């Protein structure tokens, strides 16, 4: 028995074990996503409503001048498409955080947290899994948008991928950080009102920042400080094969900061320790 114990109690993990764990978490997230078809449909319907109804209505009201990365006048639908892609990821990130709160309340989260692999790695895997799901949603949106004459250059579908990965990680990490502070599922409604809506509307998703500046210089600065604005701009530029370096730096730094915050919050000696056992347990 002692030899078995020595083998099982070895320190460290092989590369294959790390990859197996990552695959398992992504696979489980994908399975959950497939089982929740309504989640996929609602994730698509939301941006499509904005695209088909809101954008059509505002097309004549909001004129768009020639601004980078665009090299000519564009339709309003074309302008808001990157913002709607980022919106899909924003909602997905918050949905993941909702799922983590649910898992914690229902106990499933414990299965993850008692794994012997390092906790930071488990959270990172969870983040990657959420981002992978968001990519499926965004590309499904792009496919439908193509039929609506929103057709970036073909290479754009490829060059936008790294930007989507990075913005997905940032928004997922933000969701994870928020989930660590939510004690009950019911509190999630506050996330909608205090995180999702302010982030989305105080950004360049629906209107260019120079227009915002004309209306309210203060709001312009708020938008500039909003990491979601930079996620939108990163995606917008990448969709046309270009790089917005400032946005790249901001999104990169915010991803790291949110991730470190989430790892800190889920450390057993910090975040979770302040809570009692799960409901009914003592």
């Amino acid at each position: 028995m002692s030899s078995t114990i020595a083998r099982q109690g070895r320190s460290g993990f092989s590369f294959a074990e790390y990859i197996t764990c990552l695959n398992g978490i992504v696979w489980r997230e994908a399975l959950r996503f497939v089982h929740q078809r309504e989640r996929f449909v609602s994730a698509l319907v939301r941006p499509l409503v904005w695209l088909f109804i809101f954008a059509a209505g505002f097309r004549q009201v909001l004129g768009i001048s020639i601004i980078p990365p665009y090299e000519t006048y564009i339709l309003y639908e074309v302008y808001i498409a990157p913002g709607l892609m980022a919106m899909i990821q924003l909602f997905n990130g918050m949905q993941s955080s909702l799922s983590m709160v649910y898992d914690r309340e229902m106990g499933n989260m414990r299965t993850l947290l008692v794994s012997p692999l390092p906790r930071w790695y488990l959270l990172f895997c969870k983040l990657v899994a959420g981002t992978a799901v968001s990519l499926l949603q965004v590309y499904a949106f792009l496919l439908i948008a193509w039929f609506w004459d929103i057709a970036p250059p073909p290479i754009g579908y490829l060059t936008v991928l790294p930007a989507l990965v990075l913005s997905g990680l940032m928004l997922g990490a933000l969701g994870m950080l928020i989930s660590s502070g939510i004690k009950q599922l019911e509190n999630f409604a506050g996330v909608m009102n205090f995180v999702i809506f302010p982030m989305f509307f105080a950004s360049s998703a629906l209107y260019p920042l120079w227009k915002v500046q004309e209306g309210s210089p203060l709001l312009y600065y708020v938008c500039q400080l909003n990491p979601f604005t930079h996620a939108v701009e990163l995606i917008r530029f990448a969709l046309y094969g270009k790089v917005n370096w400032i946005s790249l730096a901001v999104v990169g730094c915010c991803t790291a900061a949110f991730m470190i915050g989430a790892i800190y919050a889920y450390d057993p000696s910090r975040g979770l320790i302040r809570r009692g056992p799960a409901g009914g347990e003592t």
Partner: protein
Amino acid sequence: MTATNAPVAGPMPPDTRPRHDPAVTPALSIGGVSHSYGTRRALVDVSFTVAPASFTALLGLNGAGKSTLFALVTRLFGIQAGRIHIFGHDIGLAPSEALRLLGVVFQSRTLDLDLTVTQNLLYHAALHGIGKREARVRSDEVLARIGLADRAGGRVRDLSGGQMRRLEIARALLHRPRLLLLDEATVGLDVKARADILNHVRQLVTEQGIGVLWATHLFDEIMPGDDLVILHQGRVLAHGPVGDIVADAGAHDINSAFMRLTGAAVDPGSPAS
């Protein structure tokens, strides 16, 4: 092992046995562990050991601190005071090594109801770095052992309460741990399902040499040959073989021994869990 009763809430002395000799290393060693939720003290200087290939019952009323203790052993909570070792590995300093050797069944259900029986097992295997091929072999093995092979492809939400519990135990054993923690694993089950699960876990001790810590508040789940830890209001009142504890308490059975010990410990100023 001799029983050590501390009817006036006296804490057990810390376990001072050598920790790294496989011949004597306890499966679980808890030394001087205390834990508070703010000003509310859930555990006070808790110390006891669980030997390999033994069945140790952790007996306590609701609110005794059993689940808090489990959360500390599984590293869901950080340790505020004291030390916890699993086969000599400090859970705070070497959590990966310790958690590899640990299987756990929590009081609340932790299965994913939307996934199938096999998918739940494969997910757990992945969290322990076990490759898919090996995981499938092990899944088939454990499902056959617990009589759920014919439900492998079915959704977990379609299982009965007893079947879910058996599945959780099977899942906890998938990575072949040497120590199994079960927190009130029979709560909400009928008499037959309770007996089946208890027998199954006792078989694991005798046939596979697994050390088991079985948290319960039910006296009839404890056998005369078991080791017993009585936890009351966050303190260990007694630790040792059931027979010794009963004899030392001057009682004729575990029920009356428990009543005597906990009655003696009732104190308005004592900690709550």
